[in-house]
């Protein structure tokens, strides 16, 4: 706090607010969201379906859980020598432009946890949940989102297994407001089956996730047994999208903005198209499909586009008894990053896929393009009930979560730490 000149008015209380950066306390970065919660939605039940573990910050803890001696040795060797948090992974650090050259200060969080007991990831996640007013948060990996494009399938397998162990043994045990989706090393279907069976009774695991950035045809018969197991589990199967500059078409794009706009929607569009045209909703009618982190604008486009094609070429989609859009209205979608520059388009799109029952709020915190819960509460065309459904009640149905309040009051969060940075 600097020495301010003596006030000439009636003694106002002046407090300095500092710049927000990677080391800022999560509660300071999100203090405005806490104030929004206090004013607008403190009594809502809120589930955040897509937040991120930033497992790369604790990558050594994951690597040491690799169950293969040789791969663990290689991983730890890379970790200690030149690759650090990128050991064994196939991300390209020089093409990670998420923070826009450091302009978005909170991206890549490294806040101190002095004096806090428990795992630093759990502490950071709890700060975020409390600051945003979330009752539950579902955490996904970050650096592992591109593993589907790793040229060595066995690396996806060993890292997938190690991550699942770390997630369930270290993270989810420490706070039951945190929930996880099991990482499925989808390039190796039999290991996916083994993992679904192994974690069937784990309370922290509330679903399964496939990182969408990959070229596997989701309708392939190699997945039949996996889908039967998932269907029997009653837990949803989520596809989480991402970007991949190595895809030849995307190699034309010269900005991360362009890549981000197209790539995330691209992979989920391909998987949804294959899923529907090959009649997977008819063959596995009880699998709850959730499509994560592609925004919403692509959904009405794909509904209309596929309906149009199927009407002209029904012989190429012989397993369908209804139009593609009808199946798409029965799937679930996460909200972030929700395109909101045209309220008319957003309203029409939400109507098209029954957002009131099918949309699940997600923050994507702590990534650069995260959405606060106010992105839902401030939509002018939604009813109060629709807002409550989207922010938490739909998720409670899909993921079988109890709806009793789990979060502290926003007022007490602000009292404890009013946001200074």
């Amino acid at each position: 706090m600097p020495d301010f000149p003596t006030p000439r008015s009636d003694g106002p209380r002046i407090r300095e607010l500092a710049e927000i950066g990677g080391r800022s306390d999560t509660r300071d970065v999100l203090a405005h969201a806490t104030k929004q919660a206090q004013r607008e939605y403190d009594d809502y039940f809120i589930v955040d379906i897509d937040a991120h573990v930033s497992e790369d910050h604790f990558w050594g803890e994951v690597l040491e859980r690799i169950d293969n001696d040789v791969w663990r040795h290689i991983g730890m060797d890379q970790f200690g020598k030149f690759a650090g948090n990128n050991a064994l992974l196939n991300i390209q650090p020089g093409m990670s432009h998420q923070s826009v050259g450091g302009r978005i200060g909170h991206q890549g969080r490294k806040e101190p946890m002095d004096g806090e007991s428990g795992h630093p990831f759990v502490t950071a996640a709890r700060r975020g949940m409390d600051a945003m007013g979330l009752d539950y948060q579902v955490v996904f990996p970050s650096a592992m989102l591109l593993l589907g494009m790793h040229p060595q399938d066995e690396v996806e397998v060993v890292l997938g297994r190690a991550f699942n162990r770390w997630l369930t043994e270290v993270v989810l045990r420490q706070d039951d407001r945190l929930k996880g989706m099991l990482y499925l090393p989808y390039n190796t279907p039999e290991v996916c089956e083994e993992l679904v069976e192994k974690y069937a009774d784990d309370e922290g695991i509330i679903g399964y996730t496939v990182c969408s950035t990959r070229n596997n045809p989701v309708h392939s018969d190699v997945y039949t047994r996996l889908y039967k197991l998932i269907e029997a589990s009653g837990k949803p199967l989520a596809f989480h999208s991402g970007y991949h500059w190595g895809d030849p078409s995307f190699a034309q794009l010269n900005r991360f903005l362009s890549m981000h706009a197209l790539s995330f929607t691209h992979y989920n569009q391909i998987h949804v198209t294959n899923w529907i045209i090959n009649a997977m909703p008819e063959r596995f009618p009880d699998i709850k499909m959730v499509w994560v982190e592609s925004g919403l604008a692509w959904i009405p486009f794909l509904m209309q586009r596929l309906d149009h094609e199927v009407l002209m070429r029904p012989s190429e989609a012989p397993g369908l008894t209804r139009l593609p859009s009808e199946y798409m209205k029965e799937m679930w979608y996460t909200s972030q990053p929700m395109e909101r520059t045209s309220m008319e388009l957003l309203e029409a799109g939400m109507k098209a896929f029954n957002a009131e029952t099918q949309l699940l709020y997600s923050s994507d915190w702590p990534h650069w393009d995260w959405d606060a819960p106010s992105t839902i509460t401030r939509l002018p065309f939604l009813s109060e009930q629709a807002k409550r459904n989207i922010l938490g009640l739909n998720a409670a149905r899909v993921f079988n979560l109890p709806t009793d309040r789990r979060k502290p009051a926003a007022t007490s969060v602000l009292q404890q730490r009013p946001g200074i940075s």
Partner: protein
Amino acid sequence: MSTGHRDVVVAGLADLRERERVVVEVDGLELGVYLHAGEVRAWHNVCPHQGGPVCQGKIMPRTIQPLRDDRKSAGPAFHPADRNIVCPWHGFEFDILTGRHPAHSGVGLRPIPVRVEGDEVIVTI
């Protein structure tokens, strides 16, 4: 809480000149005060996008795309004079002096009246 407007000294001019920006909360109202190119501006610390703490972000030169004489791109460059406020939540940028977003003139920061008297920077809130 008083009803009428009132003047509050929020910074010393010398301090602001050195730091370019001071962000304060005055009785619950958050605002950022900026000094750039000899001009003083004050903006509400609430971003028009999602309500983020816009004034607590970085100050960056505006990025421009100069063209060569043959209209080929000369690559991105920093504007020699213009400075933008970058919101730390998602990266919306606003010109320090006009408060406007570089790509959408309809999106901007909310101003607060500010003036300098002697060595004092005074906002009216």
